[in-house]
């Protein structure tokens, strides 16, 4: 052990919204802060749906921390919000703008490369004044420990760095959270997987096709029988001159149904209902994917260990409850609260009390109850069992159930129910709200769509070919520990850049003949990896992020 390691008061790992909010708040309080980002640029490793919210009830909002944020870093404000219940080619739409506006100061569509790189400039300027700053191309590889205590971080590209506090804002696949035993990749039930296309919209087409002005935007959600019973839904958000279109599914459902997630994206893109927005010419700017923690199950109620605190996705702080999808705002709040906790701990002369102070703030400020709502816990206990699901599905699908829906619709009770944040918070994670109910609504109440969809989505090979990679040749960041099909075969379909019968993806299904017997195994090529982390959960792997600056580089995010 040498003593010439560098020391900073605070090391923030990751320059997403959580890390940026933490670093900016630390720096403004005079804490010497260094931010280490593994991408070539902040935002180059990030993917969102995505909308960012500023909540009225939140102690911090992103534009409060970064003045000028909406002007420089976002796309369109979301002024109208709809949910569409799809049954075959029939669609019943509800306006849920009221739910969207509940507790919302504003909400904008964002693309992460633009958003995060703008924030990183502000963070660097603020942190530089403290003697720190923000560095890209640096991957933090682990925790620096002495006598069993966390005292800093180790990096691939730099010598170890000592710190009085380590803020792990290193995303959904946080290696630091896992090394500290605060998160794992064990249960598919705790995760969603999002797959998205950013679709180019030439100047003026969004205004024409959506019937909105330059400073207005739409959000649309899709559910029903589009996805062969895979639990989840689709989304569409308007950016300035592009659309984000994608799906978010429960990962356990993707695995159970052996769903090819890229095909489910195409299912949405080619549905006749989408023709009104996509027109004749379809140009995809970028294909991307991301694992999303389900905070109801994955949010760590006590997200710290010694000097290490977890913020954002690294701590599972992603709220997805029915149509309420909020992650980045919670990351921002958590980042600022973690910073506040450290500033207070330092001023009391007890820097090691940062974690306990951070946890208390998450509870006192109501963040934890949004992430793990009590109402959901009660409802889930009642609703998330097979008997209840079966009864609900049969009831809904019966003539009586349909009659009931029609009656409710006549008095707009269904739309109001969908727009109720109270009900959304307690929606159980079963097929009833995701697939059965929307499909029944679409069939019983929907109008058939007559437009013809001309979209021809790119193939998976073309999508991979359009992405930018800097491959770390000879140094794969994922290793399959058990290559038997039983252990790791789920990755072939669940991985968004792999498919059965496709040789150009990450995971391939192979039959090996050996000594007269046949064995079904999977092989892995990490080159096309989009670093979503799906295989870390569904296959038996040793999973790390690539080294600094290596791997995929998202231009849109």
């Amino acid at each position, binding site marked *: 052990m040498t003593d010439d390691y*560098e020391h*900073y008061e605070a090391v923030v790992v990751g320059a997403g919204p959580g890390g940026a909010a933490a670093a900016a708040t630390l720096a403004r309080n005079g804490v010497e802060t*260094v931010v*280490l980002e593994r991408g070539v640029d902040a935002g180059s490793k990030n993917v969102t749906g995505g909308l960012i919210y500023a909540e009225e009830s939140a102690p911090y909002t992103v534009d409060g921390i970064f003045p000028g944020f909406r002007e420089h870093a976002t796309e369109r404000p979301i002024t109208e919000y709809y949910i569409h219940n799809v049954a075959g080619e029939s669609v019943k739409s509800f306006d849920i703008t009221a739910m969207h506006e509940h507790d919302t100061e504003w909400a904008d569509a964002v693309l992460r490369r633009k958003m995060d790189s703008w924030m990183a400039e502000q963070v*660097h300027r603020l942190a*530089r004044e403290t003697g*720190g*700053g923000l*560095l890209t191309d*640096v991957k933090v590889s682990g925790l620096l420990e002495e006598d069993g205590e966390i005292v800093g971080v180790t990096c691939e*590209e*730099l*010598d170890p*760095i000592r710190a009085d506090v380590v803020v792990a804002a290193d995303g959904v696949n946080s290696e630091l959270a896992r090394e500290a035993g605060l998160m794992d990749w064990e249960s598919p039930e705790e995760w969603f997987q999002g797959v998205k296309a950013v679709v180019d919209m030439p100047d003026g087409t969004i205004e024409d096709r959506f019937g909105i002005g330059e400073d207005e935007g739409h959000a649309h959600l899709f559910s029903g029988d589009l996805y062969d019973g895979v639990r989840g839904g689709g989304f569409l958000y308007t950016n300035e001159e592009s659309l984000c279109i994608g799906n978010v599914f429960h990962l356990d459902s993707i695995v159970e149904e052996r769903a090819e997630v890229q095909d489910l994206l195409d299912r949405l893109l080619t549905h006749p209902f989408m023709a009104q927005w996509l027109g004749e010419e379809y140009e995809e700017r970028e294909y991307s994917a991301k694992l999303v923690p389900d905070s109801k199950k994955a949010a760590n109620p006590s997200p710290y260990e010694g000097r290490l605190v977890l913020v954002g996705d690294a701590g599972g702080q992603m709220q997805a409850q029915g149509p309420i999808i909020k992650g980045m705002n919670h990351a921002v709040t958590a980042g600022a609260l973690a910073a506040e906790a450290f500033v207070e701990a330092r001023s009391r002369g007890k820097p090691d009390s940062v974690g306990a102070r951070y946890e208390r703030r998450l509870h006192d400020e109501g963040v934890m109850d949004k992430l793990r709502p009590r109402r959901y816990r009660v409802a889930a206990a009642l609703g998330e069992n097979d008997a209840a699901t079966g009864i609900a599905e049969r009831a809904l699908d019966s003539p009586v159930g349909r009659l009931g829906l029609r009656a409710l619709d006549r008095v707009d009770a269904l739309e109001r129910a969908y727009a109720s944040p109270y009900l959304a918070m307690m929606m159980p994670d079963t097929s009833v709200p995701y697939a059965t109910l929307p499909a029944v609504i679409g069939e019983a109440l929907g109008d058939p769509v007559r437009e013809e969809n001309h979209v021809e989505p790119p193939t998976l090979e073309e999508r991979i070919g359009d992405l930018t990679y800097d491959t770390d040749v000879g140094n794969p960041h994922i290793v399959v520990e058990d290559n038997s099909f039983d252990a790791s075969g789920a990755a072939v379909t669940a991985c968004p850049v792999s498919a059965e019968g496709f040789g150009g993806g990450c995971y391939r299904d192979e039959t090996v003949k050996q000594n007269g017997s046949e064995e079904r195994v999977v092989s892995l090529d990490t080159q096309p990896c989009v670093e979503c982390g799906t295989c870390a959960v569904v296959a038996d792997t040793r999973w790390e992020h690539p080294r600094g600056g290596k791997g995929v580089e998202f231009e849109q995010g």
Partner: protein
Amino acid sequence: MHTVALTKGVPDFREGQVSFDEDGHLERGETPTVMNPNDKHALRTALQVKVRNGGHLSVMSMGPPGYGDVLGEAMESVYADDLYLLSDRELAASDTWATAITLATGLEKLEDPPDLVFAGFKTADGETGHTGPQTCWCLDWPMITHVVALDVDEAAGRVRAKRLVEGDIEEIETVEAPMPAFIVADPEFEPTYRKAAHRLTLKDLRAETRERAEDHEEHLTTWDHADLNLDPDYIGLDGSPTIVSSVDPIPKAPAEREATMVDPADAAGMEELFEAMEPFAAADGQSAAGD
């Protein structure tokens, strides 16, 4: 701490840039001038010293006034503080000896005497590798060549380097010298920035230099032979003992092999290809086609 990196403008010998006449002579007017590619090793070494030890970094060159742009390029890549160009007609057609005298005089004229001077590893046009060592000889400083790693101990006034022995990467020796010293960087030199502070300094320098390099001429000092107080008899063509009697182009080796392109989609063509390959496969005693 004052460091100086020496650089030279050379014809851009890359394919598509360089132009030769019918006799194989270089057409200087048609060929753009760029920074000598090997000088980037010297610049990278100088930059490492600036990042790790701080101080003032200058870049110096001898050549026609047009070399100012080459220096501007150097300023951007090495984040130099200022630029020096030794330039006038009396200096034209200098050989390495006359160039070394001129450069050494320029280095000695600097108001803040340099602690370290860096030169690249031979130029792309002359390829002699003489100018750096001769300049050092004129200065009568210690010289370390083939440097692959460098540490400066400013307090002790010493520099320690790892260098290749006989240019062999397998054989590395560590040497020390008092400053001022002359360093010739090897192409194998890799700067190391293992501290966050180093990388943050680099980021600062990049931002500062972006503005400075835009009007690099404001940071350029040009000295002629009178400024340097050099006797025209000892510089330029008159001061160059090297006499080039003639330059002969090396004839291209005649190509004896023929190549035929086959489209993999052309079944008949591929069939012929496999037939043509068969004798070679058989000669190996194995079937190339597989079972």
